[in-house]
């Protein structure tokens, strides 16, 4: 009998666009990469509730309050699907949460920036969710089945999130001078961090090659970033605002927008924990978890009593 290389069999499946399912054989590194990526994605949803949650109590109208609450609640729901998808790879939600709290697991750096005005809620919807969608649409075709299916559900809701963000900014852009200033200021502060969401340049991205080969990701960081810039550079015309990049210019030859240099030093500082809100975000998550411990224990204890009675 010929010797079959399991890694080659696995790669054949990937190449033939057959989804990998929880009980399938998979290389250890594939499992680990997916756990890392899916749990990081779940953590991002949960930590991401904090900057937007910061404005729920102060939303300027009842309609906006209801929309914002629904959106932040959706993010909690996305966190749940994603933790469930990651659990199919053999790590419990509790372990993942512990890794978040200890700093071992990461979440998207974008949530380490503060929401300083109401316009930030619009800017997050439009730019941050807009950037996330580029990545998430790609992930609906990722090779790991449960992750791909979770992303299909998530993408449907995310496009509503992006629209509401743009709509909130559109109202501001047509409002008073104070509202227009608030809108431009939010765009100025969120633009560059949103571009950093796509990760390091392809030449410096350590996990990229293998992830592309395994079809965990299907487009490179730079490709996605360029698509995003091309989209936003057009949409901002409707707002009558500008992007804070003097080098942003349509390049007829490339059929893409050229853009200025990202501040990679800032990027790495925020990744390393030195962003404006890294500490506050993690502290808030740890506090909620610690203060909720007695509640979770009571629920377990009560369930046990019911089983034995």
């Amino acid at each position, binding site marked *: 009998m010929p010797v079959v290389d399991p890694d080659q069999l696995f790669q054949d499946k990937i190449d033939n666009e057959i989804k990998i399912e929880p009980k399938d054989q998979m290389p250890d590194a594939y499992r680990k990469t997916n756990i890392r990526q899916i749990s990081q994605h779940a953590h991002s949803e*949960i930590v991401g*509730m*904090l900057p937007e*949650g910061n404005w*729920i*109590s*102060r*939303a*300027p*109208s*009842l*309609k*906006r*309050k*209801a929309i914002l*609450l*629904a959106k*932040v*609640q959706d993010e*909690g*729901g996305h*966190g*749940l699907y994603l*933790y469930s998808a990651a659990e199919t790879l053999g790590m419990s939600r509790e372990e993942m949460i512990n890794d978040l709290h200890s700093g071992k697991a990461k979440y998207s750096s974008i949530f380490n920036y503060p929401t300083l005005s*109401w316009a930030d809620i619009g800017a997050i919807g439009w730019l941050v969710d807009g950037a996330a969608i580029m990545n998430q649409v790609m992930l609906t075709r990722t090779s790991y089945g449960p992750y791909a299916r979770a992303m299909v559900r998530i993408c449907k809701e995310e496009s509503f999130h992006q629209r509401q963000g743009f709509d*909130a900014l559109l*109202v*501001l852009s047509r*409002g*008073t001078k*104070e*509202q227009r200033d608030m809108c431009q200021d939010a765009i100025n502060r969120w633009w560059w961090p949103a571009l950093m969401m796509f990760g390091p340049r392809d030449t410096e991205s350590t996990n990229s090659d293998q992830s592309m080969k395994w079809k965990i990701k299907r487009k490179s960081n730079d490709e996605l970033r360029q698509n995003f810039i091309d989209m936003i550079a057009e949409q901002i015309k409707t707002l009558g605002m500008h992007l804070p990049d003097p080098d942003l210019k349509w390049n007829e030859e490339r059929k893409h927008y050229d853009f200025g240099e990202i501040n990679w030093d800032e990027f790495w500082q925020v990744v390393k924990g030195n962003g404006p809100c890294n500490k506050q975000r993690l502290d*808030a998550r740890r*506090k*909620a978890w610690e*203060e*909720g*411990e*007695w*509640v*979770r*224990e*009571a*629920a377990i*204890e*009560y369930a046990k*009593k019911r089983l034995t009675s």
Partner: protein
Amino acid sequence: MTQSYTNYILHLADNALILGQRNAEWCGHGPVLEQDIAITNISLDLIGQARSLYQYAAELKGNGATEDSLAFLRTEREFKNCLLAEQPNGDWAQTILRQFFVSTFQFYLYQSLLTHSDSTLAAIAEKSLKEVRYHLRWGSEWVIRLGDGTEESARRMNKAVSELWCYTGEFFVPADYETAAGSDPAGLKDAFYSKVREVFTQASLAVPENVFMHTGGKNGMHTEHLGFILSDLQYMQRAYPGCEW
């Protein structure tokens, strides 16, 4: 319609908004993800109810009133919510118990409003009742789970009872506008306490006796908490008057 009737609708709206605003403080900070989502969902339902009621009150009031002018531009003394709704979240036990009390009251109240002669109010009550039925079930389950969970959860539930029981009596003392609107909250008292006793029994919680009941919220005499709730709630509309959002 009279000013008094509009006040009645505002009273119902204020109860829903202020409790919705309080519950929303949990969003992103709940003890476990599923319950973070649940309390946010209840908050959303309450804000939805408040919106229907404010929109109706704005229509009755005329003069350019809107749901937002009623929610964001009235003062502490004009708010007519019961004192219970504005009490701080405290720990999860206190939030659960506050929700359970309000949902129990809303359940019987909205049921009684289904046959109200004002068909708009009856329709709002019917729609809200579907949501409140779920809130009541969720609240009851959690009161029982915590009351009959661990020693610590029972201790916290008992503390919540001692903090909040004194605000339950206000539901049943009718304000003038309630009587004028043909609402008889005193008539709901027996059903309310009987439901509470039933759930407390399952939760192994003692029902307090002879507690002094605080009132005043319905007539605009609030606890010190309301001013802070409104300063958050109304900040944008006060800082940037007359804008669209």
